Structures are given as structure tokens and as C-alpha cells.
């Protein structure tokens, strides 16, 4: 939930680029469940990612998914990930012995003390204001610094956090005519459709109607994509025609795929098609079939 953008009271998946750059250059994870089952089961995992990496995780949904009736299997609590709050300092820790509390340790997520924990007071700062275990503050308590060296190290520290949680990010899902699975890097056929958001529904419907063999690759983590780049490139290689199917004008996911998976010098940029709809209405299977 969050900001509403686009045509009022109409639907789209058009906030990806906004969310990638919103608020300044800090690392973030953006996830789009696409269907109601995932909307139930994913958030518990996303909370764990946010706590493990101590970074914001953004959940992108759209109006069409939120306002429509769907038939879904009964929700199963065992699909929910057990909540793991990540490294914490509790009042019990504070009592166990003298607490030389360090909120900020470079290169990893330092334990977090909730306000109200005796002896662990500290500063939380947003934006580019800097806390660093600099020479003045070797114990990482978080002192104020705008020195160039501190700013540089903190920026690197913030961006290094993505590596801590790369394995936890929801993986691309392969949907073949036979069923759904985590993508293992092997598939092949005439047509490959890469989808995100609620475009997954018309894409699977079109898949069933097509005479040719078509595979759908549903991206749930839509940013960053580097950790899944090899899989995405492999999917593109193994299909004769590949298009990104999405509900915005610019082709925001296509742009992100090209930037994140094909920007290394020497990489051959593929002929990646775009099938899009941007009139405020949910895409249909007919839109896809016609475009193909």
C-alpha cells in the first residue's frame, strides 16, 4: 500500500521506475506478487528480508487485483514463513552484562535495539546523513559525520547490504503449459513471455490458446534483477521470440531487464519485444494474442 498514481480509480502496473528511484540512492527490494495467493504468502517473507538486510522492501500491487473477486485455494498458514526479526539486542541482553552497543557496523546488519532498551540509545538517520565507525567513533555507536571518507564508506556499506539478502529474494517462476515451478534455467520453445503484476493472468490464458509452445516467466522480484540475471538471460536465449508483457506505456520492466541483465560491456542485447496496455484497464489474453 502506498501512493496512488496513474489514472484515478483505474488500474496499471506503472510504478516500477518511480519506486526504483524514489527517495534517493539507497538500496531497496521491490516485489510484485501478481496474484492473490502470493499476496497472502509473500509478505511474511518480505518482512524477513527487510529485517535481515535492514533495508526497505516495497510491495507493488494494483487496483485490479485489489478490487476484484478471485477463487483461490484456502489459505494455508504453513505457507507463511516463520517471522525472523534478524539480529536484535533485547532488554535481557542489556541486563546480562555491560553493553558496548554498536548500532552501526560496516559490512553487515548490526543488531537493532528497540527504543526502551536500557543502555542502547542511538541515532537513526535517513537520507545521506552519515553514521560510521570512523576513527572518531571506532565502536560504531553512530556519531555525526559528513566527512567525505565517512560518506563514501557509508554509501558503500548501504549498497553492500543487497548481497546479504540476495538468496532470500523471491525467484522467477516458470509457468509452462504443464504447470508452475521455480525456474531452473531450462525451458525452450517458440514463444517466451516475461510478465509482472497482474499481467500474469492474461499471459497464462494466452499461453493455453496459442498453437505454438509458449512459456511464461513471472518475475516477482522486479528490482534488483542482477541476482536473477543469468536465469533471465537463459530464458531469453532458449525462446525464438521473447516479449515482456506489462501494463504501462514505457515498458518499465523491459527497461529494467535491459539495464540490470544486459548492461555489462560485451553483452549482446537481445531483441526483446514489448506487449503493453496503458488505457487504465486490465490487459486481456486477446491483447496478447493480437500483438503476437
Amino acid at each position: 500500500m502506498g501512493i496512488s498514481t496513474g489514472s484515478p480509480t483505474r488500474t496499471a502496473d506503472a510504478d516500477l521506475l518511480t519506486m526504483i528511484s524514489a527517495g534517493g540512492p539507497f538500496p531497496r527490494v521491490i516485489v510484485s506478487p501478481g496474484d492473490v495467493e502470493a499476496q497472502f504468502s509473500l509478505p511474511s517473507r518480505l518482512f524477513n528480508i527487510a529485517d535481515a538486510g535492514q533495508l526497505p522492501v516495497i510491495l507493488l500491487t494494483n487496483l485490479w487485483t485489489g478490487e476484484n473477486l478471485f477463487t483461490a485455494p484456502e489459505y494455508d498458514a504453513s505457507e507463511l514463513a516463520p517471522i525472523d526479526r534478524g539480529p536484535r539486542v533485547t532488554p535481557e541482553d542489556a541486563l546480562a552484562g555491560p553493553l558496548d552497543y554498536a548500532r552501526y557496523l560496516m559490512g553487515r546488519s548490526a543488531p537493532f535495539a528497540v527504543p526502551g532498551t536500557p543502555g542502547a540509545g542511538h541515532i537513526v538517520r535517513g537520507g545521506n546523513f552519515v553514521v560510521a565507525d570512523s576513527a572518531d567513533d571506532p565502536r560504531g555507536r553512530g556519531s555525526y559525520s559528513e566527512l567525505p571518507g565517512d560518506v563514501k564508506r557509508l554509501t558503500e556499506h548501504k549498497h553492500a547490504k543487497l548481497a546479504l539478502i540476495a538468496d532470500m529474494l523471491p525467484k522467477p517462476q516458470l509457468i509452462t503449459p504443464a504447470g508452475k515451478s521455480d525456474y531452473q534455467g531450462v525451458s525452450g520453445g517458440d514463444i517466451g513471455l516475461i510478465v509482472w503484476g497482474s499481467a500474469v493472468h492474461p499471459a497464462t490464458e494466452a499461453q493455453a490458446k496459442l498453437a505454438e509452445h509458449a512459456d511464461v516467466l513471472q518475475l516477482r522480484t522486479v528490482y534488483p534483477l542482477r541476482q536473477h540475471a543469468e536465469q533471465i538471460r537463459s530464458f531469453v536465449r532458449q525462446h525464438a521470440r521473447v516479449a515482456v508483457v506489462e501494463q504501462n506505456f514505457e515498458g518499465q520492466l523491459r527497461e529494467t531487464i535491459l539495464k540490470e541483465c544486459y548492461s555489462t560491456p560485451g553483452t549482446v542485447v537481445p531483441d526483446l519485444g514489448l506487449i503493453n496496455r496503458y488505457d487504465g484497464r486490465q490487459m486481456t489474453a486477446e491483447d496478447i494474442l493480437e500483438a503476437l
Partner: protein
Amino acid sequence: MEFVRFNGVEFPYHPEFYGEQSPFGHLPLEDAVETSFQLGQQTFTYQRIPEEKRPYPNLEMGNAANMCLGCGHIGISQGLADALYELQIPPWLVMATSGIGCGGKWSSDIGQMLDDPLHRVYGAHVTHGQSTSSGFARGVIQPGLLNIMGGGDGDIASIGLAYLHNVIASNVNGLVFSMTNNVYGLTKGQPSRTSEKGRKDRRMTAALEMEPLDLVLEALAISGATFVARTLSSDRKKTRDYFMAAILHPGCAVLDIISPCVTWNMSQNAGYWKPLLFEMATGNYQDVVVDLEKHLDGKFDPTDRATAEFVYRRLTEAGKKPVGLVYYNKDSVSFQQDHGLRAERPIGNLTSAELTLSQDDLGKM
């Protein structure tokens, strides 16, 4: 679980944290003496712990603060530190939330300059204008903590004005203070929303044509406001008393503190303000607005809202800068009290088992 109401905060009393054997210092509630002080005609009462028995030091930041010499913000931070010292609220129960600018630095500085890490407060230096919205959330999630929100006038009266309205209307327990210097200092002297009409200095191509925003009137206009006051930063003792009253007040207290900027708004220094100030409780109305004297029957009553607003406006029209306790609701009930919010322990320390949904829970939902 035993909850203690002590000097404006209500927190679970763990003997390990506050008792005689506590490694964090013994908070001797039994030695506290009920003590009163006055703001105008209003009396405020608190539990005073004698100085020699106080476990927590003064969090004053002293010369280490990264401010211009003579900046009014230093006096305000010192007044706040003095108030916390006098009230002896455990530092780990203090949440300090500030926005961006010169007026945003206090949350990073207060208590952080001490060598002893036991006595650090929980500060948050949040994004511009969001000290009130973030502070509101922190206050609701952590109802047992003292919630202090503050920033410059750019932060509180301009970019964060909409959030100020919400936090006042909700009457969340805590205080909002604005270090009002009528200028954007950190960005080098542009006029702010509180700058007076007609200001023209060498950096401006034309005189300012907009009427200034008055933070006191703004707060008064919001239904739900329960404590609105203004003071001048140069009187440290008085600043301390206003902070103490605001902390003791159950609900959201708004303090507009005039803070002369010695670098970018030098003409409006303490000497400029002093002749303009009008103490609402003790001032001589006869000299300023003749008909007010009759109306007030010799005494200004800050507990009557309509009178407060009327008198305040007439004083402003007469060219005065009213200071003092402008409006005060004695029967204020805070958001936390109203909703029965108390926490035995911080919500952030709930365990995995407590947070994970079972099939049974799901069925009930």
C-alpha cells in the same frame, strides 16, 4: 506488571532497570518530592528527585554541538536537556525525532556527546518535515516512551505543516517544538514561511510579498489542540520550564520558540525581539490595546480558547509578539490514554512465535 506514572511518562517498572541493584542507575521514586512551578497563573506539579540522588546526568551537549556561536538553537537544546535532567526521565525512555536543517541536529547531539553510552537517548534524524509524522508513529507503537518531536520552522511550519495538523488533532502524548528563526539557515539565508512581509536583503532580488505564517495561530486553529505556548530561546530557565510543562502535559504540546539566527538573520537578534515581546499572563494590556484590559477584567485566562485566540490576535495587530502560555486545556486526555495504549515491553521485541500466524488464528480471522 506494575506500571509507574512518573513525570509525564507511564512505563513498566522493572526493578532490574530501575531498582537499587540496577546497572543503569537507581531511580529513587521513594525520594521524590512533589514540587510545583508556575507558567503565568498555571501551576504544574512534578516529582522532583533531589540533585544528589539523581541517577541520570544532564544530557547537555555543550560546545560539541555543530552550531554557530550564539545560535538560539543551542539555548533551546540546553533548555530541553535541563528539563529532562530536572524531571529525571530515564534516557532510554526518550525518543527524540527531528527533521532536516539546523533545527534537525538536536536529536543527533542531545545525550550523544556523553562518554557513558548508558545514558544515550533514542534519536531519529528523519526526512524533511517528517518529525511529526514519524514521531506520531513512534508514540503510538511505543506508548510508554517520552515522545519529543522538533525542528526548525522550515521543518515544522512549512514542509511538515500538514503532519503537524494531524499530530495536534490526534493529541498524541508528546511535545512538538519549533526553533523559529524566520529564515532557512542551513541552505544559506533564504526567507522562510515565517519571514516577515517586506523582508529584503542583498541576496534577494525583490522584497517578500507574502504574509508570514504564525505557528501559534496555526496550532490554535486546530480543534484538538490542548497546549500552545511561545517563548524566547535566550532565557534558558524559562525555556526549561516550558519544556517541563510540555512534557508533563498529557497530550500534544506545541512550543513555538523564537530562536535568533546569528548568521543569516542577524537583524532579528534577541535585542530586536525583547521590546516586541508581550507576556500574555503579566503584560500591561493598558499600554497596548486599551479595550483588552476591560475585556479581560485584569487577568488573561489561557484555559479559555476563544479568549486566547481573540487576545492573541489583538496583540499581534498592535504589533506585539505575544509570548507565554497562550492556550492550555486542563482536562486534556492523550491519544494513548484515550485508546488504553500501554506496552509491557517494546513491540519490536516480540518473538518469532508471537508474530507467526497459525492456521487457528487464520480461521478466526
